[in-house]
C-alpha cells in the first residue's frame, strides 16, 4: 500500500539537497543521519529506483556519531545506504565469526574505525626496533585476516588511519624510541598502508588531527565520558574525507578539474585589464597568492589531474593571460579550453564530450557564486567548489573538499594529464584528416601486448576498478585475484600499452581469458576511454587469436554484460566479427583467419 517509489526517490533527492546546500552542521548531520537510518528500517520508504548500498560501520569505540556521518556522506554521493552498526567494541569477533550478525547483514562496504588506545602495546621504552616491528607485524596480520574475511565475501573496505597520541612523557627522548606510543602508531600506519595497498581505501585521520591539532581534535574528556574517538564537532570536516575514500572504493574518482579564468586564475578581467593589468606575481599580495594557487594547480596536473578551462570570454583574448611573465600555467597545460558567452553547464558538457570522460568525474571551481549555483542545479553530479573572493584562501578551500584525493599514485596517473592534452591535439588533427584510416595511420601508433609483470599489477587492478565505459563484463577483479590468475595455467592475463607521436598513453587496456576445452573465453576486457576507436581492439584480438591457436583452441568466446555505463561496447564483439550465440555470448572461429581485423598500430 505504501509502496511508492517516486516518494522515496524524492526522499533521497531531498536529503541530498539538505546536505549539499552548504556545509552541514553537526546537528544537521546527526538528525539527517537518523532520518536516513529510519528510512532504511522501513521498506516502504526505501528508494525503489535509487541505488542502495549495504554499509557496515565497525569500530573499537563509540560509533553512533560516525554511523550518522557515514550515512550522510553516502547520500551526498547519490546512493542510499542501508546501515549496520556492530555492537560496541566487538568488531574483531563480528568479522571473524562467519555466523555473526555482520555476515548475516552481508555488507557491500565495511568501514573500520580504529582507535590508537586499542593498538598501542605497553612495551618498555627501551624495547629494540626489531621487537617493536615484530609486535606491529602481528597487528598488521590481524587486520589482514579481517580484510580477507570481508573481501572474500565481496565487500569493499574503508578504514581510518590511526591518530598518534600527543602524550609527550619525557619529551624529545620519546621521538627516538621505537616503543613510544606515538611512534608505534606512526609506524603501524605505514605498515597498514603497505599491506592494504589495492585492498583498503584509507581515511587519513592522522592528517585531520595534525591539521586541527591533536588536543583540539581529540580532547580526552570525550573519550572518558562517552568513549568517543574525537570531538563530534569535527564531523563536518570528516564528511568530505569519507566521501573521497568512498569514491575510490566505488570507482567514482574525480579526474578533471575545470577552472574559470578571471578572478580565479588571476586577479582582474583579462578582456578589460589586458595582460599587463591583471594581478599575478609578486608585485601585490593578491598577485602572489594567485601565482601560488597556479603552482598548486600545476602540481595537480603533474599528479595526473586533467585541467580544463570554462570561461565567459572571447577565446582569443582569454588565452593571452597565460603569456603573463608570472603565469605558472600555460595554455598547453589545459586539455580543453571552452571560452564562449554561453552558460557554463553547456560548456562543461562540451568538455566532457571532447575529452570522452564522464561528467561525474568533473570538479568545477569558480569565484562567481551565480555560476557555481547554476552548475550545481543543472549538473548535480559535478563537484562544485566556490572559491570566494580572497585568493589567499583558494588552496585551503579547495583542499578541504578532498575532491581529488587518491589512494596511491601509479605511473599512468603521472602521465595521464599529458596523454589527455595529447588527445586534444590529436582531435584537432582529426578534424583536418580526410578519412579515419589516414588519420590513424598518421598517428604513428606503437602497441605492446604482454603478460603484466609485478610493477604493472597495481595499474591493472586500478583499471579493473575504475573503468566503466569500455568494460565488457565489469567484473572488477582485485589485485589479489589478478595475481591468482597469473599463476594459473588455464588463465591468460594481458596488458596493452600504446604510444603515438603525441605522447605515451601508458597501460591502457587489460584482458583476462580462460581456456575451457576448445574455447578461449574472454572473461574481462577493458580499455581506457582516451584510446577508443584507435584500432586497439583489433590489435589486441589479433594477438589473442595467435595465443589461442598456440594453445590449441579453435574458437574465441566473448561475453557482454550491460551496465548503465558500458553501452559503448554493446556491439564490440559483433564489430570484431563475432557472431551472437545468445543474449550475452559471442563466438569467433579461429580457422577463418584475421584479415578483417585491420589495425593501424605497429609493434
Amino acid at each position, binding site marked *: 500500500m505504501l509502496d511508492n517509489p517516486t516518494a522515496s526517490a524524492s526522499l533521497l533527492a531531498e536529503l541530498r539537497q539538505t546536505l549539499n546546500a552548504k556545509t552541514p552542521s*553537526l*546537528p544537521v548531520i*546527526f*538528525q539527517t543521519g*537518523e532520518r536516513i537510518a529510519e528510512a532504511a528500517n522501513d521498506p516502504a520508504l526505501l528508494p525503489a529506483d535509487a541505488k542502495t548500498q549495504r554499509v557496515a560501520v565497525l569500530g573499537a569505540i563509540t560509533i*553512533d*556519531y560516525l554511523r550518522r556521518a557515514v550515512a550522510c556522506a553516502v547520500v551526498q554521493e547519490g546512493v542510499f545506504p542501508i546501515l549496520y552498526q556492530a555492537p560496541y567494541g566487538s568488531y574483531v569477533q563480528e568479522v571473524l565469526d562467519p555466523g555473526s550478525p555482520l555476515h548475516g547483514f552481508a555488507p557491500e562496504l565495511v568501514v573500520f574505525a580504529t582507535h590508537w588506545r586499542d593498538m598501542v602495546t605497553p612495551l618498555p621504552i627501551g624495547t629494540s626496533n626489531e621487537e617493536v616491528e615484530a609486535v606491529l607485524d602481528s597487528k598488521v596480520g590481524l587486520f589482514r585476516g579481517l580484510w580477507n574475511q570481508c573481501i572474500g565475501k565481496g565487500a569493499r573496505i574503508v578504514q581510518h588511519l590511526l591518530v598518534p597520541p600527543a602524550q609527550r612523557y619525557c619529551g624529545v627522548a620519546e621521538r627516538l624510541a621505537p616503543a613510544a606510543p606515538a611512534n608505534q602508531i606512526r609506524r603501524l600506519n605505514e605498515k597498514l598502508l603497505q599491506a592494504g595497498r589495492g585492498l583498503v581505501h584509507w581515511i587519513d585521520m592522522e592528517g585531520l588531527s595534525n591539521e586541527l591539532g591533536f588536543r583540539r581534535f581529540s580532547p580526552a*574528556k*570525550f573519550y*572518558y*565520558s*562517552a568513549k*568517543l574517538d574525537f*570531538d*563530534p*564537532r569535527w564531523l563536518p570536516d570528516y564528511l568530505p574525507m569519507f566521501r573521497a575514500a568512498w569514491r575510490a572504493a566505488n570507482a567514482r574518482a574525480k579526474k578533471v578539474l575545470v577552472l574559470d579564468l578571471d578572478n580565479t586564475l588571476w586577479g582582474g578581467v583579462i578582456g578589460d585589464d589586458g595582460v599587463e593589468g591583471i594581478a599575478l606575481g609578486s608585485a601585490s599580495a593578491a598577485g602572489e597568492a594567485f601565482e601560488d594557487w597556479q603552482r598548486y594547480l600545476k602540481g595537480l596536473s603533474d599528479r595526473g589531474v586533467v585541467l580544463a578551462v570554462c570561461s565567459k570570454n572571447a577565446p582569443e583574448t582569454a588565452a593571452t593571460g597565460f603569456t603573463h611573465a608570472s603565469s605558472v600555467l600555460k595554455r598547453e597545460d589545459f586539455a580543453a579550453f571552452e571560452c564562449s558567452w554561453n552558460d557554463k553547464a553547456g560548456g562543461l558538457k562540451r568538455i566532457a564530450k571532447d575529452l570522452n570522460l564522464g561528467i561525474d568525474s568533473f570538479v568545477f571551481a569558480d569565484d562567481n557564486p551565480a555560476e557555481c549555483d547554476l552548475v550545481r542545479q543543472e549538473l548535480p553530479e559535478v563537484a562544485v567548489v566556490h572559491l570566494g573572493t580572497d585568493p589567499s584562501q583558494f588552496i585551503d578551500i579547495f583542499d578541504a573538499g578532498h575532491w581529488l584525493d587518491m589512494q596511491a599514485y601509479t605511473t599512468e596517473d603521472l602521465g595521464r594529464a599529458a596523454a589527455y592534452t595529447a588527445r586534444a591535439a590529436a582531435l584537432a588533427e582529426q578534424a583536418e584528416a580526410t578519412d579515419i584510416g589516414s588519420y590513424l595511420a598518421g598517428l604513428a601508433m606503437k602497441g605492446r601486448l604482454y603478460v603484466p609483470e609485478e610493477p604493472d599489477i597495481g595499474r591493472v587492478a586500478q583499471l579493473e576498478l575504475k573503468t566503466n565505459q569500455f568494460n565488457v563484463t565489469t567484473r572488477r577483479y582485485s589485485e589479489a585475484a589478478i595475481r591468482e590468475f597469473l599463476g594459473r595455467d588455464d588463465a591468460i592475463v594481458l596488458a596493452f600499452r600504446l604510444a603515438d607521436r603525441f605522447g605515451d598513453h601508458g597501460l591502457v587496456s587489460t584482458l583476462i581469458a580462460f581456456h575451457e576445452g576448445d574455447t578461449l573465453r574472454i572473461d574481462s576486457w577493458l580499455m581506457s576511454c582516451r584510446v577508443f576507436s584507435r584500432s586497439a581492439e583489433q590489435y589486441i584480438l589479433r594477438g589473442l587469436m595467435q595465443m589461442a591457436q598456440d594453445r590449441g583452441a579453435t574458437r574465441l568466446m566473448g561475453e557482454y554484460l550491460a551496465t548503465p555505463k558500458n553501452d559503448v561496447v554493446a556491439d564490440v564483439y559483433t564489430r570484431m566479427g563475432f557472431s551472437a550465440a545468445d543474449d550475452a555470448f559471442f563466438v569467433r572461429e579461429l580457422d577463418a583467419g584475421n584479415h578483417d581485423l585491420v589495425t593501424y598500430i605497429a609493434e
Partner: protein
Amino acid sequence: MDHPPLLDLIAGTLGIPAAEISESSDMSSVKKWDSLRHVMLMTELETTYGIELSDREMTEATSVTMIRQILSQRGVG
C-alpha cells in the same frame, strides 16, 4: 557575540520544536535529550559561546538551569 537564544540552541541541537523546551527542562523530562545528544549539545555550547567545558561541567550540565549557571560563571551567559 551573535548567537541564537539558549533555548533555541538546545531545541535545534536536540532536533525538537522550540516549544518543547522551557527553563525547567532537563534530561529526564525531554525524551530526545539522551546521552548521545547531550555530548553533541555540549560541543555545540562550546562552539557557540567560545568556551571549553570540563569533564565535570559536561556531566553536571543536564538541565537548562545548570547550563545557565555554568554559562554565567564563565561570563558568557
